[in-house]
């Protein structure tokens, strides 16, 4: 069972070796990354089937927590490890044969994302978060255009500020409680962190980690980076990295900061993000910018969902996250050939009906059209919000409804544009999507349809994951019963 650490370590090993290996044998260099990821996926599935739903903890280096670092393996962390590996394999930069460096960065991103999902130590989480940041700076700048350099620089500065804030928050937690182990913290938190200082630590970590999670005041890097980076990198950042940042915050909320004010802070920032993101997307004139802003809006909705207390919030938030993780990268891949002004897209859907059709499907699910999974996720959010007594949750319900209207308006405007006959004044539209992008999008759309067909069992299983993750006592017992045996 302790082989779960391989999902982090093997991609790291492959990343270290890839640049040198590519000099010796380009073919091996090209194959090493995908093979490593595929093996790690198999390993994750094997562990998942072997654990029979019971969480366990791995003490790295044989040093028992709280002195050493542990990986906490439950259904939630395995789910995100699996999703990380699959998404990085799907969005692998196949085209860049000449750049083994991009392979190395993608592998580093995958490894650190797995580490982030699994780690049970606050500072270890920070280290992996930094690794994700540095790898994504490189990937964002990889297109080597002036715009991508400018965007990455802005991203780097904001991300650096966020890291410092998060580190301050972690330092406060350590100063107050004397440990960094999440399980031990979950036991100490009620007496040591239930103070204004504890709240300030949460606010600092929320803002710091929120940079990657596209949280409201620290998301100004999003539109530029997604407009300038390649669509595969945008898909990785918007789909995967943002969800892992949210996952870290959710773990901390469940284990460390059970105060109501922490949830309300996140709810308010989520509300502001939803409103600002959707309005900006509505006004956007360019495809990638529109998708970037709408991603900010949807992440805001995800933050709103996770701020509902208890399992309900986790369940709804998880459903929304999974849905967004599936749909957003697909939309970015479709947008690859539709870059540039939205007005110039007249007739693009008629020129390539398959791509146009998939865009319609994904857009419908994003808005929340009934039989599609997007509807189901939003429905969970609505019932969760409506069950809360507090006024602010009712306001949130209204805001989410409003955001759906705005979202529907701008997405359908694009769809209308796509299927209008091209006028004389429209720019020549490239209909060639490349079989690779089209194939990946097709796969993601097929998964979406499969999700719709198997909604019942999928929902029941996801609820089970949420219930398991929402239990701080289980977390503590799992980590410390293991150390008692040894």
């Amino acid at each position, binding site marked *: 069972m*302790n*082989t779960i*650490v*391989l999902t*982090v*370590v093997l991609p*790291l*090993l492959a*990343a*270290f*070796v*890839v*640049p*040198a290996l590519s*000099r010796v044998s380009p073919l091996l260099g090209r194959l090493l990354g995908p093979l490593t990821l595929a093996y790690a996926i198999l390993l994750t599935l094997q562990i998942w089937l072997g654990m029979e739903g019971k969480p366990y903890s*791995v*003490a*790295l*280096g*044989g*040093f028992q927590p*709280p*002195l*050493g*670092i542990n990986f906490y393996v439950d259904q939630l962390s395995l789910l995100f490890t699996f999703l990380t590996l699959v998404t990085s394999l799907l969005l692998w930069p196949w085209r860049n044969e000449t*750049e083994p*460096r*991009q392979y*190395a*960065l993608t592998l*580093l991103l995958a490894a*650190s994302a797995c*580490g982030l999902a699994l780690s049970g130590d606050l*500072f*270890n989480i920070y*280290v992996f978060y*930094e*690794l994700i940041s*540095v*790898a994504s*700076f*490189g990937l964002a*700048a*990889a297109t*080597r255009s002036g715009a991508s*350099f400018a965007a990455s620089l802005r991203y780097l500065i904001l991300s650096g500020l966020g890291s410092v804030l998060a580190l*301050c928050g972690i330092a*406060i937690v*350590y*100063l*107050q*409680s*004397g*440990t*960094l*182990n999440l399980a*031990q913290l979950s036991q100490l938190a009620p007496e040591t962190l239930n103070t*204004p*200082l504890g709240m*300030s630590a949460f606010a600092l970590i929320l803002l710091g980690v929120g940079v990657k999670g596209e949280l409201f005041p620290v998301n100004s890097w999003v539109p530029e980076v997604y407009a300038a980076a390649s669509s595969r990198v945008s898909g990785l950042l918007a789909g995967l990295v943002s969800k892992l940042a949210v996952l870290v915050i959710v773990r901390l909320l469940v284990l460390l900061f059970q105060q109501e004010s922490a949830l309300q802070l996140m709810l308010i920032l989520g509300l502001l993000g939803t409103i600002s993101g959707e309005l900006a997307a509505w006004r956007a004139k360019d495809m990638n910018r529109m998708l970037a802003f709408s991603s900010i809006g949807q992440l805001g909705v995800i933050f709103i969902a996770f701020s509902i207390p208890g399992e309900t919030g986790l369940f709804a938030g998880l459903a929304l996250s999974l849905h967004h993780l599936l749909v957003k990268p697909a939309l970015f891949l479709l947008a690859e050939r539709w870059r540039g002004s939205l007005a110039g897209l007249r007739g693009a859907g008629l020129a390539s009906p398959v791509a146009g059709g998939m865009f319609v499907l994904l857009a419908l699910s994003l808005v929340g059209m009934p039989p599609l999974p997007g509807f189901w996720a939003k429905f969970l959010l609505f019932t969760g919000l409506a069950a809360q007594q507090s006024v602010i949750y009712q306001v949130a319900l209204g805001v989410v409804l409003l955001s759906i209207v705005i979202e529907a308006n701008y997405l359908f405007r694009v769809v209308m544009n796509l299927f209008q006959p091209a006028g004389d004044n429209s720019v020549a539209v490239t209909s060639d999507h490349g079989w690779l992008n089209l194939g990946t999008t097709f796969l993601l759309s097929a998964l979406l349809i499969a999700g719709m067909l198997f909604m019942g069992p999928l929902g029941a299983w996801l609820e089970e994951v949420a219930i398991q993750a929402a239990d701080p006592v289980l977390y503590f017992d799992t980590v410390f019963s293991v150390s008692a045996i040894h």
Partner: protein
Amino acid sequence: MRNLAALVFVGGLAFLLLVIFNQFDFAQAPMIVGQGILTDAPDRVGAANIVTAVVLGYRGIDTLGEISILFAASVAAGLVLGRRRTDVRRDPPGGFILRSGVALLFPLMLVVGFYIILHGHLTPGGGFQGGVILAAAFFLPLLARPETPVNHAGLSIVEGGAGAVFILTGLAALLQGGEFLQPLLDNGVLGELVSAGTLPLLYLAVGLKVGAELAGLMARLADVEVDEP
């Protein structure tokens, strides 16, 4: 106006942090983990330098993450700066004093660098610090003779090899039925050069990796095209 807004923001943030930090009673912090490691480490890990026991033992996976961060930074820098037109003029070679000074300093710095790396488990220092000195040693000749080509292929092999050694040492423990990065070999006598099991080997890998990465990074920065006068 922008500057004013930035000033207000920075001032506000500084004030906020000051208020927060004013709340602590420093030197009174609870020492749950700290005390635990101080009592547990000498027998368990066998490193005279307890910092090393923490860096490579208790928090070994953090160290792996940190060298990966450095690797990611150097790869990203290579991606951004890695192309140079061949016809661009390079800086002229340094003078006699610089060249002789470098010839004198180079072996000295190598010795000091390796000394610090290999004594990392005994005295303050270790892979990161020694690695930086190694990188500086290899950067000096480049300052004296800017026209010498940098062997980036060799550097990337050292980099990858050292990283692989670190991870493979960890995997060897996993194969023997332990946990990843569990210290192997005998602890030996506390304070001797050959002690603390595999820790010195890990630090050597860290040192070589850090050295190769920083040397490559500095060479890339020095190699950026100069604007024609």
